[in-house]
């Protein structure tokens, strides 16, 4: 068996610099992978319990905010006898350095993972500058 490199899915919100949360539920910072290609930036975030409809993504200037709310599960008639995680909502903010083509942003939630594709705008793609002969 391979060595597992999986750690926890989420961490408490204390490290987040965003505005404070005025809800009674917990707020977590989802674990995320970010990778970049020439054309786009892709963000993957673990948001177990959230689906397509409960995710909210905003891009204001260059601040990207991902919020995912998780509806509380029904545990009527049952008692929690052992617990390793608590449930709550997710939020994470990123500052983007490249100009993003806002109209081309795509978000998909599958199996508790958000995949966000942020295409770079045409103007911000690196341009090749031709060197003219100055003779």
């Amino acid at each position: 068996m391979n060595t597992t490199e999986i750690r926890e899915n989420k961490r408490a919100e204390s490290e987040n610099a965003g505005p404070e949360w005025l809800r009674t539920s917990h707020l977590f910072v989802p674990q995320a992978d970010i990778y970049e290609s020439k054309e786009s930036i892709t963000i993957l975030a673990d948001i177990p319990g959230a689906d397509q409809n409960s995710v909210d993504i905003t891009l204001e200037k260059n601040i990207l905010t991902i919020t995912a709310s998780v509806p509380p599960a029904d545990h009527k008639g049952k008692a929690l006898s052992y617990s390793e995680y608590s449930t709550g909502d997710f939020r994470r903010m990123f500052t983007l350095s490249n100009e993003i083509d806002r109209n081309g942003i795509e978000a998909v939630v599958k199996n508790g993972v958000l995949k966000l594709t942020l295409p770079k705008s045409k103007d911000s793609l690196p341009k090749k500058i031709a060197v003219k002969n100055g003779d």
Partner: protein
Amino acid sequence: MLLERVDDRGLWQSLRQMESLQQKLNQILYAGQTNNGRDYQFPPINVWVSEHHAVIEAEIPGIEPNDIDISVIGDTLVLKGSRKKIELKEGEAYHRQERGYGDFARTIELPFKIEAEKVDAEFRRGILVIKLPRAEADKPKKITVKSLV
């Protein structure tokens, strides 16, 4: 005294000190990676119990239901699976990689014997819910006291 005398007891004490130092070091190194300061196995689970059922919930985002393997022996449940690594295409590079990947396996001891035939598992939104009915033979029985008068 700079050096501790190493007799039998001293040696054990040093080992224990070393162990606690190691723990402290780990706490510093892995701070922020652990959940409430406790280091859990993956996936994290919650266990709910009612009179007739035990319900195990596990947060396993980013896995396909087919990649989860559940087996039950007596009052022990084994949960296995694998989260696949994302293969980057040429020209793509990571800025950040926090999500783990790889194989995982957990053995969970249940508070009572269960009906292995009637175990039901559901995977939705990255959360696995396993419903385990309590074995009939294991359910608490009410004993009526007969009056012999």
